[in-house]
């Protein structure tokens, strides 16, 4: 995977140059936001299950999707939905820490759309759930870190749509 640090080091090495000017500024900014990122990752990691419960309650529950014939019925598929939402949250948190979306592409989004379409998972409802996750996460971590998480959760939305 790539992270924001390697994303500036690798091209500099290709040219045989030190990091300078804009590249160092980019790292400086990243280092300065480090505490915000670490704190958010801590909050998200320690309450992931509850974030997922709230997300599902906000977006998916009490609709056709959990009834017989719906894609979250029977319980096996309900659990699979929880598992996938937890993946989204975990990988978005990794990407937020790295300040780089590439891990989402590599580990989550690559082939996901095809997999979902072959399994009959409704993309529209998945997107609704991720949108709800953005709100729930922001409530937990605050506006500033929430904005940063939005970047990567939106990346998932874009990858699905």
């Amino acid at each position, binding site marked *: 995977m790539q992270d*924001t640090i*390697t994303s500036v080091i690798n091209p500099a090495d290709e040219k045989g140059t030190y990091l300078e000017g804009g590249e160092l500024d980019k790292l*400086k900014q990243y280092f300065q936001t480090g505490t915000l990122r670490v704190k958010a990752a*801590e909050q998200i*990691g320690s309450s992931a299950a509850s974030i997922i419960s709230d997300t599902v309650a906000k977006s998916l529950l009490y609709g056709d999707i959990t009834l017989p014939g719906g894609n979250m019925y029977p319980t096996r598929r309900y659990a699979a939905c929880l598992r996938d939402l937890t993946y989204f949250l975990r990988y978005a948190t*990794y990407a937020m820490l790295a300040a780089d979306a590439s891990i989402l592409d590599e580990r989550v989004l690559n082939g996901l759309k095809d997999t979902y379409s072959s399994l009959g998972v409704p993309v529209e409802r998945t997107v609704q759930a991720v949108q709800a996750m953005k709100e729930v996460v922001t409530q937990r971590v605050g506006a500033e870190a929430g904005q940063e998480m939005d970047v990567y959760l939106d990346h998932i939305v874009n990858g699905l749509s």
Partner: protein
Amino acid sequence: MSIVAKVIAQSDRAERFLSGAELTQLQDFFNGGTTRISAAQKLAANQQKIVDEGSKRFWAQCPNTPSNSGDPQKTSLCQRDQGWYIRLVSYCVLAGNSKPLEDIGLDGMRDMYVSLRVPLPNLKLAMRCLKEVAMGLLSSEEAALAGPYFDQLVRAF
């Protein structure tokens, strides 16, 4: 690869969020950010000086070596390589991880220098001299961050 990518890969393999210890490790890394940047800037600004001064010290202890053989091309190529290693150390300081040095400059390094007929023990001494000069130019905080990568470089030879 940076320390950030490393702990993420570690967590991903275990399919979990980052552990408390990993988060602390990252927090420490970010706390040193300003020092990391100033150390990397000093290494960049002083590369030539470190190489020139390091070579003097090296030749004083080891006069019979390709870079001191009177062939200007050999001298300039050896010194160019030494400059590259200083650059790789600066990458490591910024990445908080020795992978840039290992992946770019150490993997295959022995085979290359053996084939070039550059004696490894001489290079080891040369690298030690680079370290000495570089450490003298950095603050103690900066030196504490860069020193271990220079040590790893010396050990690799």
